[in-house]
């Protein structure tokens, strides 16, 4: 676990939660193999960039024209690997495990979108709930999952995690201070 995750939780309007580890895979496969490989892995691989699918605890997000990130419970790591390996002869592809590369931070709360905009240049209104994107956050490449109107998951590379986490905690504290000032002046 990283250092920042041991910091006392901030009492801001947005809940920041460090998620438990999951098995992550970076998947590259050509157009022709998309559907067949999806069947082998037990979930649909969405065709459009930013679209997601999930089935039985596994999740896939389309990052590029031939690139997906696949998440699975840690216990299913081997199963997924074996399934891909068995399909390899028919559907050539690349499946690289990246489980340890990233740590996921979950954000939830009415001002979650506002909090992300302190560091993310994307227009998040154009990212509907149920989608996800690879983008930048504070100059760092991240994968952003929008789970609901006010709920997000942020996959951050391990070595940048403390930086992003503390950046968001600072923003969250500022929201809390802002609210306090408003209530005092009212």
């Amino acid at each position, binding site marked *: 676990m990283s250092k920042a995750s041991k910091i006392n939780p901030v009492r801001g309007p947005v809940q920041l939660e460090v998620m438990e580890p999951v098995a992550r895979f970076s998947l590259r496969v050509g157009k022709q193999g998309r559907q067949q490989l999806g069947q082998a892995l037990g979930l649909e691989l969405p065709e459009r*960039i930013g679209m997601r699918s999930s089935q039985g605890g596994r999740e896939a997000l389309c*990052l*590029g*024209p031939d690139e997906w990130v696949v998440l699975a419970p840690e216990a299913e790591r081997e199963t997924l690997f074996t399934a891909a390996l068995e399909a390899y002869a028919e559907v050539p592809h690349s499946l690289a495990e990246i489980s340890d590369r990233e740590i996921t931070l979950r954000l939830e709360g009415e001002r979650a979108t506002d909090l992300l905009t302190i560091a993310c*240049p*994307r227009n998040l209104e154009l990212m509907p709930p149920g989608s996800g994107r*690879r*983008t*930048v956050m504070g100059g760092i*490449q991240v994968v952003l999952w929008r789970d609901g109107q006010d709920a997000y998951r942020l996959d951050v590379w391990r070595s940048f995690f403390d930086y992003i986490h503390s950046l968001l905690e600072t923003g969250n504290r500022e929201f809390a201070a802002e609210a306090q000032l408003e209530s005092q002046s009212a």
Partner: protein
Amino acid sequence: MLLIHCPYCDEDLPELEFTYAGEAHIDRPADPASLDDEAWRNYLFIRSNVKGPHYERWRHNHGCARFFNAVRDTVSDRFLTTYRVGEPRPDLESLIGKEGRE
């Protein structure tokens, strides 16, 4: 902030997600060994350095990670169009005409 249209994502996205990758439509010589030094140098280093609309490569590296081509006016920094790799070079006159009508 500059918004750049990624032809793969089909969205207008902030320039922070993109990087510039040099002039576009430069073909690698089919048989480099047969070139003399001058011709090889020209292929490697000599670029057109246009003032005005410029055909160039960009990469959406913090997004879909794809290279694509763009026509950008180097004076105004305005993107006239972006298109996928492998598509033919768009006709400049029609682009400038389109730009003029906007």
